[in-house]
């Protein structure tokens, strides 16, 4: 086995290229404060411009095929890209783009050739930003129970309804949206996916006031929104994967959302917090206390196991290995270990972790934000309970037939 993120000569050269490129192309002022909800429009625009430049290199969506604007990169090079982005405090893409991150691989599986050529290159080149629209006020874990309708009328679908916990600050160009196309149809056989341009008449976006973003996408998630559709006419050619076939399409999307692709970003805040506890302030270090050291080690182990699960999933998905429960297992682990780590931080370092005060809050507010974000992160991409349900079905607990993982390329 080889766990190395160490580089072969070619990989080393690639890493050097990426690093040099990022040094040259990452604009000043890209960093925002610890709370991504504070991201200014100017900071967002800077991130988008970096995204377009990454897109030109095929690095914005490095694993997608070149013919659609991706990078066709192998697992190792993708790891290097994620690594180098994380090293300068950025994720990939460097802004919230969940509709692209999960929609693009789904379109690759389910779209027609014409749709792939129309939708994928602008996403991969960073020209458009895409949100994903799934959850509704009355349909969270029970996604199949959504109520937003899209009724065929000539060459368009007319969309009505409300989506919540959507997107990010500063708008989007299009929305990858699950809708009901047959309101009288049987459950699971009445759904479809639409790519909805956000500039169509009848769409309104209202920000939600949340504890944090809970964005697994790392930095730049920004504030969440409600999106209202009032008789919005969406071109029929934007329906992907076949009318009323949306539940099957959803298995691909959800496989990615539930962690099946494997995310490689380290939980940087843990490693920074360890360093913070080693540092001496007025002759005293938090790690001087044996109880604190014991907690720090537990925290480290939690983070390491989560990292290893992510690494395994990444390897599974990029080498085409069969997967079953691993995506949901990683997601569950990340959520629960996040909560565990956050409470350990509070125990170890005391009430200062609750403050983002420049003088008293540790690590420029990063730890305070993590206190909120770890709690918020329990719900996005399926609750911990749903992750357990998925795991049990995939393992085949209590049943001989194991549920198959959704197709991901």
């Amino acid at each position: 086995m080889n766990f190395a993120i160490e580089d072969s000569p070619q990989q080393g050269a690639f890493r050097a290229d990426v690093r040099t490129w990022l040094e040259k192309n990452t604009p000043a002022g890209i960093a925002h404060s610890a709370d991504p909800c504070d991201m200014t429009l100017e900071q967002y625009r800077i991130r988008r411009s970096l995204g377009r430049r990454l897109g030109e290199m095929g690095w914005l969506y490095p694993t997608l095929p070149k013919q659609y604007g991706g990078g066709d990169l192998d697992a190792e090079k993708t790891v290097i890209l994620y690594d180098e982005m994380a090293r300068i405090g950025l994720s990939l893409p460097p802004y919230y783009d969940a509709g692209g991150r999960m929609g693009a691989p789904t379109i690759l599986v389910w779209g027609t050739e014409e749709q792939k050529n129309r939708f994928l290159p602008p996403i991969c080149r960073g020209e458009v930003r895409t949100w994903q629209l799934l959850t509704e006020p009355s349909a969270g874990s029970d996604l199949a129970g959504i109520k937003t309708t899209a009724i065929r009328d000539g060459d368009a679908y007319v969309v009505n309804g409300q989506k919540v916990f959507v997107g990010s600050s500063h708008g989007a160009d299009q929305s990858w949206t699950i809708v009901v196309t047959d309101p009288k149809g049987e459950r699971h056989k009445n759904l479809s996916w639409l790519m909805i341009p956000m500039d169509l008449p009848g769409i309104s976006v209202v920000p939600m006031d949340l504890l944090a973003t809970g964005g697994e996408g790392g930095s730049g998630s920004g504030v969440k929104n409600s999106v209202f559709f009032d008789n919005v006419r969406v071109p029929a050619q934007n329906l992907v994967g076949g009318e009323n076939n949306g539940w099957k399409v959803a298995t691909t999307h959800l496989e990615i959302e539930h962690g099946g692709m494997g995310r490689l970003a380290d939980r940087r805040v843990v490693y920074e917090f360890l360093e913070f506890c080693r540092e001496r302030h007025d002759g005293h270090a938090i790690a001087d206390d044996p109880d604190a050291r014991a907690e720090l080690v537990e925290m480290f182990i939690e983070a390491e196991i989560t990292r290893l699960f992510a690494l395994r999933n990444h390897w599974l998905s990029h080498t085409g290995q069969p997967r079953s429960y691993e995506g949901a297992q990683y997601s569950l682990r990340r959520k629960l270990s996040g909560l565990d780590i956050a409470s350990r931080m509070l125990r170890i370092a005391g009430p200062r972790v609750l403050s983002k005060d420049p003088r008293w809050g540790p690590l420029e507010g990063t730890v305070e934000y993590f206190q909120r974000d770890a709690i918020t992160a329990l719900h996005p991409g399926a609750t911990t309970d749903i992750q357990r349900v998925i795991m049990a079905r995939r393992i085949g607990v209590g049943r001989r037939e194991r549920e198959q993982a959704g197709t991901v390329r």
Partner: protein
Amino acid sequence: MDLSLDDTQQLIQESARDFVRNACNRDVLLRLDRNPAETMSLLWPKIAELGWTGMAIPEQYGGTGNSMTDVAVLFEELGTGPVPGPLFSSAVLAAHILLQAASSAQKQAWLPAISSGERVFTLALTEAHYGWSPEQVRMAARQDGSSLSVSGTKVMVHDAIHATDLLVPVRIDGASAHSLLRVGARSKGVSIRALDGFLSAVSEVAFDDVRVSKDDIVGEPGAAWDAMQRALLRAVAVLCAYKVGGCRAVFGMSVEYSRERSQFGQAIGRFQRVQDHVIQIVNHLDSARWTTYEALYKVDSGLDAAASVHMAKSVASESYMRACDFAHEVHAGIGVVREYGLTLHTKMSRTLYHCLGSPKTHRRQLERELKLC
């Protein structure tokens, strides 16, 4: 990055699976559980014949010089039994201690015999104040003419009942640094008493004025501890793989039972509370698995493996014990019927929990590796 097994490892896995399925099936395991002394007659000749006694030993000493990951793949399969016996104690742990500590003449004298399975070595380290740190190992030896005299008691010695030779850390003439002695298990003054109870092949070994030749001081006097630590860092991860195998087995048993056991008119695995137990087991299994194999990868690649090894041992010990606990929640009554086989793992998970250092011990060492103290 490549987390798959290579061709050699797949062959090792296949032959070990075959061994566990046939030569060491549940009936054999239950019989050995009742009568551990039969292990050597029933299993050992086959184990030696398969070449497993030489896998972790370099070719120049009669072994096949496999990587620690190769050896771990074998032990993961043996852990699914759990297959008892001194293979780890002798052919991995003791062999690596000798590789690190012994003189070349001693290596030539002892390692080929370990490699062929003819002799069985085990480490007798822990004492009344149980612990794996140097200050807890106090047994004394004194020089008496041309030989040494050893008196004292080692407790919780694994596989001593099967051993031909004991490796015994002592302090000679009040020295603070430890020396390591090879003592014949049937030497005059050595008495080995298997401890009865909820543990597997663990003994008290008493030494009453045992005479040890100076040729049997392993390597240089006073230099044993560091050499043992180096050997431990290599061997521990293999023991972790055995626990991974144990977790795998109880996971498989629990999933199977969740399907076939019916209550309230449906398979119990349809109840989400039962599902939660199974999910806990697989989470423990995979935590143990990936921390273990990453540690092995570092050991084999010559990287600094200490932090990973300490983490793996801490996680794997805890995981095996907890996996068994959750399996008992799934199985309820049938789980404690000895004939069913789950308790073989439960007992092994407890027996090995402290072996080569408890999770707490390894977490303490991890604190140092992380430069927290």
